[in-house]
């Protein structure tokens, strides 16, 4: 808050007057929205903390845009509520909604620039807030400098290229100094060079201003490169929080059906119909853990429906709602007995484990229901067997 422009109307906003709480800046509770097309968004719990960068990751049609539009109050959710600094905003009077929108802004995937100059476009948010002309001039010029568009200030906005337009849109959003910046696929419609530029601007500005950023993306690597936390969406739902088991790999055909060769050097059976390089997702709720017997047999136990069994060590355990979240390190340093399985006669079963030529292994996140966790008696440091169905190994 050492900003020299604190005298401007944005800071004088009644909603900023409230004390900063340590709780989340935005909370979504039981958010639900249905479209006539049959699409149904349902997000049970969402908590966004100040100063953090979140990536909403998912394929097209997974509900990323709907979620962002709801968080920006462009779409009013049919059910549920949004709390900003602990106070509900949707369903509140229009004035409150506007105050919220002045602190939570959205950059749409396809930016619309007004029919005016680049300068006027970037100034529009400040003009809506009734800021003095000189202050606008100074802030807009500074922001145009930051995004590298200063020389275009007095050009018609419609003459900008796609990447420049995206940066102008970003500048227009950033110049209002929002507390929360929502970005819908900010780099999807620009080339790689512009994408890098936009990521750099975001990283710099958001760190400087302790801005909360929520960015949707269908690029797995971008999600993990930028975000402190990745929220994964599928079919309108948010998958369990925390690092999803997403790996880079290649899906290939083998004699026994499709196999996934992960970059870590581990090969898994899969039911997926996709082929070629892909991001592989293993749902953390579909991994079954078992304690190996006190005197281990020559191989990990075979369960009839498990196509893949890995051996690993539990490195962390944490309570996550009604589940326990375990981190399992199935790395190559483990002196497990399972090597690359050359025993083709063993049928659909495949033993997968550390290999001499594998540079690294798999770090798996596993969710176990509390009740069954208590029965398993697993603690941190234990060696476990993780069984993964072929159907649980999917291309993202």
């Amino acid at each position, binding site marked *: 808050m050492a900003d020299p422009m604190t005298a401007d109307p944005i800071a004088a906003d009644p909603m900023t007057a409230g004390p900063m709480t340590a709780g989340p800046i935005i909370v979504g509770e039981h958010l639900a929205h249905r479209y006539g097309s049959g699409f149904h968004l349902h997000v049970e719990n969402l908590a966004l903390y100040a100063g953090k960068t979140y990536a909403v990751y998912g394929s097209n049609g997974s509900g990323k845009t709907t979620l962002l539009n709801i968080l920006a109050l462009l779409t009013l959710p049919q059910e549920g509520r949004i709390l900003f600094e602990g106070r509900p905003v949707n369903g509140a009077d229009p004035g409150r909604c506007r105050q919220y929108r002045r602190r939570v802004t959205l950059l749409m995937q396809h930016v619309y620039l007004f029919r005016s100059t680049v300068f006027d476009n970037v100034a529009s*948010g400040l003009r809506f807030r009734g800021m003095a002309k000189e202050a606008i001039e100074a802030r807009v010029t500074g922001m145009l400098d930051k995004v590298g568009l200063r020389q275009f200030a007095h050009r018609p906005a419609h003459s900008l290229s796609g990447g420049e337009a995206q940066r102008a849109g970003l500048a227009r959003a950033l110049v209002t100094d929002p507390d929360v910046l929502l970005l819908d696929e900010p780099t999807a419609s620009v080339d790689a060079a512009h994408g890098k530029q936009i990521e750099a601007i975001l990283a710099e500005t958001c760190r400087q201003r302790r801005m909360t950023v929520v960015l949707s993306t269908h690029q797995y690597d971008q999600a993990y490169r930028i975000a402190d936390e990745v929220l994964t969406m599928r079919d309108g739902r948010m998958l369990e929080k925390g690092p999803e088991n997403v790996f880079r790999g290649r899906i290939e055909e083998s004699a026994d059906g499709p196999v996934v060769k992960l970059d870590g050097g581990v090969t898994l059976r899969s039911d997926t119909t996709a082929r070629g390089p892909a991001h592989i997702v293993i749902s953390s709720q579909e991994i079954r853990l078992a304690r190996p017997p006190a005197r281990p047999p020559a191989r990990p136990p075979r369960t009839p429906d498990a196509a893949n069994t890995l051996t690993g060590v539990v490195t962390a355990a944490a309570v996550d709602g009604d589940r326990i979240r375990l981190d399992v390190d199935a790395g190559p340093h483990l002196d497990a007995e399972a090597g690359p399985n050359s025993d083709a006669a063993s049928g659909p079963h495949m033993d997968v484990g550390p290999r001499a030529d594998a540079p690294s292994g798999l770090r798996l996140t596993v969710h176990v229901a509390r009740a069954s966790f208590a029965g398993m008696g697993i603690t941190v440091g234990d060696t476990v067997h993780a069984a993964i169905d072929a159907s649980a190994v999917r291309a993202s």
Partner: protein
Amino acid sequence: MEYLYNGLQEAVRLLISGESGVYTIVGVSVFVAVSAILVASVMGLPAGYLLATRRFRGQRFVTTVLNTLLAMPTVVIGLFVYSLISRRGPLGFMELLYTPGAMIIGETLLALPIVAAFTLSAFRAVDSRISETALTLGATTAQTARTLISEARFGIMAAVVAAFGRVIAEVGAAMMLGGNIKGSTRTMTTAIALESNKGEFGLAIALGIILLLTAFGANILFHWLQGFDD
């Protein structure tokens, strides 16, 4: 064909000298048309905006009626207003018949559907992201409306120009309501009708040239303005 040639010569002479009250007639035409367009815009622009941005019952019906009114014959408008303001009509006491005021009423009724319908389609044509973008930037309802108007400004101007072109070139309502009184309600179109009846082609052709240029000018302006929306 001799008389046509002579008429053309006479027309050029009149245009240069300004005799026979050529420019008075032009003045009355422009005054009536501009007044009618101003009144029609004050009512038609907000109507077009509301039709484009609000949802209400009977909206389709209103839109259909509006589009039908675009094809309203000007003599029917003349007849309608005449029946209202003639001495025996409900507004007869105002003694408006055969005054510029009567003509302005008629031309306003002619222009109103044009302004409203073209404004409606101008707002319908603008990008649906405009209001959303304004909202994400913290605009109030009034600021959002102003942004929309600003983005649709060329379409709105085109609506006004189109209405002007129709009003200045029509003869039916002007004749019936104005009565073609020299120096008061004689417009370019009514004068042309009268003068050619009398066989005085000079003045008719002179006014015809000005009318043609005005109509062409309005049309060119209209298409130029519409070109901004592509």
